[in-house]
């Protein structure tokens, strides 16, 4: 214990073996996803095609957000010079490492959705900005200086491209540190992380305005960016928790113990409350001021087909973690943490569902093989890519200057 501790000889250069049932299941997941998506896209029913696009956007965005949250986690630990997390940094690094792939997938989805008019047709349609056209929309025309196809695509490439570059450099520097030692990688990572956090902090709200909020182009909310950021951050932490627990169960990461899990639990608990805070700030101001152009968002979500889901999202994403994780011991137990993390991941899928569906498929909402199949496909893809990435490098950044502090972490 404490300053006396003679810790075991950990094998920091051990690598995760990605094989067997985990690999097979992730490949099966990808196959299920591809079948569901193809079946949706070749459907002769236009509504089915649109619904598939909406689900692709949902999962593509979710996937990219979780990977970006991995990069954000790594950068945040660097800038705050946190010691506790050093031993488990390889997991968010693996998530950050596949951000470029996620970004390309999301770019293809929004690009195809935009050109095929299956997504973003509220602002991207014939004649919306032409005063002589019968379809002329004054509000969209007023926003068109920002909300136009080239600008939209350039921003998507610029934002996701810069996140990807920083994510790649930060992970590369850490892998380099394993081989070379010394403080060079750490010092460089610190500087890059600080720059990354500033860029990320200022651009993610705009990125979510573009990707999600513009689905209902008449409506706007300045809270929307923070609301999306909170969802991204909670689901990113929940993903880290799931991977840490499962990789530990497989017999790796012996240096990560209940103290590290406790800290991850506190982050997951705290940021679930933060998500609720931002969600409620957006909701209450709109409810209170009762201005038609603002209430339209909640009006749609209080239609009978969305209302139960709307409240279910609050129960899963706020009430459940509040009650289940408030106790200290709950945050230190593998079973409870795994359960809440998976529940929150489902909860934020529902959160994104409520953000996206009323602006795309509107009253043709559904929950069937497309929703489930697309979600399984992306989970399989994420698992396959992250685990492959994780298996390529040692599971501990053994030359990280705070590695020793992480081994002795105790709360």
């Amino acid at each position, binding site marked *: 214990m404490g300053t006396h501790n003679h810790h075991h000889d950990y094998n920091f250069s051990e690598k995760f073996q990605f094989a067997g049932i985990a690999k097979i299941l992730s490949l099966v997941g990808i196959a299920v996803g591809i079948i569901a998506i193809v079946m949706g896209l070749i459907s002769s029913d236009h509504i089915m095609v649109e619904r598939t696009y909406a689900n692709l956007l949902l999962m593509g965005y979710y996937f990219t957000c979780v990977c970006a949250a991995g990069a954000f986690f790594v950068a945040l630990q660097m800038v705050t010079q946190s010691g506790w997390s050093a031993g488990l940094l390889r997991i968010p690094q693996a998530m950050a490492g596949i951000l470029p792939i996620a970004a390309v997938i999301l770019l293809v989805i929004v690009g195809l959705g935009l050109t095929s008019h299956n997504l973003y047709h509220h602002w991207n349609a014939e004649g919306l900005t032409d005063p002589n056209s019968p379809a002329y929309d004054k509000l969209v025309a007023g926003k068109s200086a920002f909300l136009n196809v080239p600008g939209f695509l350039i921003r998507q490439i610029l934002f996701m491209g810069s996140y990807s570059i920083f994510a790649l450099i930060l992970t590369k520097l850490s892998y380099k540190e394993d081989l070379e030692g010394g403080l060079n990688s750490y010092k460089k990572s610190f500087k890059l992380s600080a720059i990354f956090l500033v860029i990320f902090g200022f651009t993610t709200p705009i990125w979510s305005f573009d990707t999600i909020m513009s689905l209902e182009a008449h409506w706007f909310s300045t809270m929307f960016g923070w609301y999306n950021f909170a969802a991204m951050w909670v689901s990113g932490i929940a993903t880290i928790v799931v991977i840490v627990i499962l990789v530990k169960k497989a017999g790796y990461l012996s240096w990560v113990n209940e103290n590290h899990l406790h800290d991850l639990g506190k982050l997951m608990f705290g940021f679930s409350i933060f998500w609720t805070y931002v969600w*409620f700030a957006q909701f*209450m101001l709109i409810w209170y001021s009762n201005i038609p152009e603002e209430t339209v968002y909640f009006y749609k979500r209080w239609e009978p087909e969305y209302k139960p889901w709307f409240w279910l999202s609050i129960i899963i994403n706020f009430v459940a973690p509040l009650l289940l994780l408030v106790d200290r011991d709950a945050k230190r137990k593998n079973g409870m943490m795994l359960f809440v993390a998976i529940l929150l991941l489902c909860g934020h899928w529902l959160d994104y569902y409520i953000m996206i569906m009323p602006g795309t498929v509107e009253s043709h909402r559904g929950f069937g093989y497309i929703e489930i199949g697309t979600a399984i496909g992306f989970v399989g893809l994420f698992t396959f890519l992250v685990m492959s990435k994780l298996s390529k490098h040692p599971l501990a950044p053994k030359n990280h200057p705070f590695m020793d502090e992480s081994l002795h972490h105790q709360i």
Partner: protein
Amino acid sequence: MSNTKYILGSFADPDDMMHGIEKLQANNISIYDCFTPMPIHGIEAKLGVKPSRLPIAAFCFGALGTCLGFSLLYYTMAHDWPMNVGGKPSLPLPNFVPVTFEVTILLCALGMVATFFFRNHLFPGRTPRVMDLRASDDRFIIAVDAHENTDHALVESLLNDAGAVEVKYNERKYVSYE
């Protein structure tokens, strides 16, 4: 019987103190308490200190705050003089959330501070209870109850073996009361 109430082993190094705790425990000598100028990780587990009950107090104060905050709003906004703000019902629950939340946090925080001060005799007008004045400066102290552990020579030799720079025999529990 001597008049000694507590034997204090004074260490200059936290590792030596942890070592001293191990030695005393190995010889079945019960430790009254330890005092250190900074938190030492793992010391609670080693001494078998039970987890603090402060969170329970925090929850009670928080729950009290929720009730008081809500009652204030209910009485002023809905009961005594029903208010019509922007055509909303006079019991607009979403509007009550921020104030109720703030009062909950306020009472929870103030209540925890008050509980902490009360338990540690730190509130104004009370003399603080200090067994060794240097424990808040540069020394790490192990206190052993001299009545429970009668073999004082053994205690002193164990403390010295572990590297104590000073062993005191105090006839008063709290030196700060002098």
